[in-house]
């Protein structure tokens, strides 16, 4: 009962604090997904080329290579005349790229010699590079066609020259883009959980010590364990609320996400987000316990912010670890809180199947760690030093 009263008071008290509310309900759940998701969408848009989309290309000396122009046209490229000063135009960004057909292009082709082409590109400009990539890809196909024609003309089977035939077979359910996106999801969830409970945990423990309101509170007829658990329960409520809002905003955000850009089956429908939320939900009690027990050691809000600030590295660690080391899900990594949720969520978003044993291990490991942290927090509250 007193646990419930303390919880309620801390929630009401902290809802009146602008900072806590901002970080718990706005920063983690709304701003962070928007920031990360938004920049992700932008970068995908920049990298990916849509070959079906019609675009224009400036070409100098169009009359020297009519077949090439026709080939470009059949590949959704409308040719326009190049500007007078090619170099400066590309450098200034007025034209993205210019394909210059040299005077002797036709002659070289007829002689069976390498036919010279110049592609003017500005490597400092991403859009120019992207446009050049598209042109290059199409030119490669054209070159292949020409070579094959030349060889057949001389009675040679073109496949003789293909000594290797490398077929890239991507065995993951999704490409690299999907991978990145999949690892951003647990990152968003964990960050919003931490941000959601951060200020409330500090305010109710270190803040209470700093305001010197702990001494009269502890002289009331209730056990200290009850006091910690009440504060813990309030933190859990905030973390839960924050992560629910995050789930909602991720769902809303990715509704507008151009899924085709990522090359296929990564899905962010209601079912996937719900599944992800359930997988990550054991972290709600865990992160709350972590926040409470760390800030129970500290004397002032400032000290607590320093410690917890360092602690913020923890939710980011698996993100970078998994990005660069590509640790696979194993029975060993599953009981580890945070790491296991990262891996499970990645699999969930990519549509890979998850063994039930992995889920059980992840839940048990995380809840076990929670119990230890809570025991520690209760112990910390028994110390006499608490009142110093």
């Amino acid at each position: 009962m007193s646990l419930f009263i303390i919880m309620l008071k801390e929630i009401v008290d902290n809802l009146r604090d602008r900072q806590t509310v901002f970080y718990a309900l706005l920063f983690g759940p709304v701003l962070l997904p928007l920031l990360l998701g938004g920049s992700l969408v932008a970068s995908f848009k920049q990298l990916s080329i849509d070959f079906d989309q019609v675009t224009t290309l400036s070409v100098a000396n169009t009359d020297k290579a009519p077949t090439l122009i026709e080939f470009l046209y059949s590949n959704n490229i409308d040719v326009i005349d190049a500007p007078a000063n090619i170099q400066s135009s590309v450098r200034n960004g007025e034209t993205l790229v210019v394909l210059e057909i040299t005077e002797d292009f036709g002659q070289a082709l007829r002689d069976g010699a390498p036919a010279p082409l110049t592609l003017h590109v500005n490597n400092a400009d991403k859009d120019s590079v992207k446009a050049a990539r598209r042109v290059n890809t199409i030119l490669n196909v054209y070159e292949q066609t020409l070579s094959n024609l030349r060889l057949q003309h001389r009675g040679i089977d073109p496949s003789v020259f293909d000594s290797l035939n490398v077929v890239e077979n991507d065995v993951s359910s999704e490409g690299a883009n999907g991978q990145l996106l999949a690892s951003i999801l647990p990152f968003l969830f964990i960050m919003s959980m931490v941000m959601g409970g951060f200020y409330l945990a500090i305010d109710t423990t270190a803040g209470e010590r700093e305001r010197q309101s702990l001494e009269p509170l502890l002289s009331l007829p209730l056990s200290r364990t009850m006091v910690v658990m009440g504060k813990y329960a309030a933190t859990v409520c905030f973390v839960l609320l924050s992560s629910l809002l995050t789930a909602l905003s991720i769902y809303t955000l990715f509704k507008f996400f151009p899924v085709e850009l990522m090359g296929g089956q990564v899905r962010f429908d209601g079912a996937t987000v719900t599944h992800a939320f359930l997988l990550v939900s054991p972290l709600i009690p865990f992160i709350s316990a972590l926040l409470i027990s760390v800030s129970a050691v500290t004397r002032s809000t400032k000290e607590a912010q320093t410690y917890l600030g360092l602690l913020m590295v923890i939710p980011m660690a698996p993100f970078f670890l998994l990005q660069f080391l590509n640790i696979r899900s194993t029975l060993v990594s599953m009981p580890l809180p945070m790491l296991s949720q990262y891996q499970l969520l990645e699999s969930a978003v990519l549509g890979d199947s998850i063994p039930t044993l992995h889920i059980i291990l992840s839940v048990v490991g995380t809840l076990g760690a929670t119990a230890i942290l809570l025991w520690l927090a209760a112990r910390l509250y028994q110390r006499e030093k608490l009142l110093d």
Partner: protein
Amino acid sequence: MIVAEELYKSFKRVGASRRKPAHEQRIVAVNSVSFKADDGCITGLLGPNGAGKSTTLRMLATLVKPETGTASIDGYDVSKHVLQVRQHLGFMPHNAGIYPRLTARENIQYYARLCGLNRKDSLQRSGELIEQLTMTKFADRRANGFSQGQKTKVALARALVHRPQTIMLDEPTNGLDVMATRGLRDIIRQLAADGHCILFSSHIMQEVAALCDHIAIISDGIVAIEGSLNEILGRTGQTDLEDAFVSATQALSKGDDE
């Protein structure tokens, strides 16, 4: 009723070198404190800064455990019957420690609920205390920005919320102006007249002399002398409390030297 016998408490000296002998690594906050505070009486714990007043009160309030010695509140041992002691005790620490984002009324209600009153009773009880301590004007304002006197009143109301028999106040008149001090004294007198046991600590002689029926003078963690004002003056052969205080503490340090 409060009975304290030979209370002793020391703290670890922060930053003490480990090579020093054990007794130099600790600060003795309370050395030997024995006194009695009766129901219906105002008892003053008088002593200079650092004498060990707050530490004594904290031991009585079950916030820290005495290393040796015993104490009881209304017959309950402070080391053994912690919850009963807390139920019988209203403690107002040195600092008001009220919640700035809650109103005065909410501050009081919170403590009422924690002491086991249901919602209706806690509303009624806090309303009562707000009347009794004349807090009506600021009762529904958030405590952020309260004056020292207003804070003290809220803290006092919180300490009284569960109708404790014994009430302990640690330097309650700190930072209060003349009128507020008088108001507080009247409240304390009324509580004693209602049969409560009141213990309050102070380093101000005049205040203790004016208010207390019973005085315990504490210095360097030791209660030097205990009794009514007249008893203390008689035993030390002085005419005012200040001189009595000096002579009692001097007698104490002489006793140490021998």
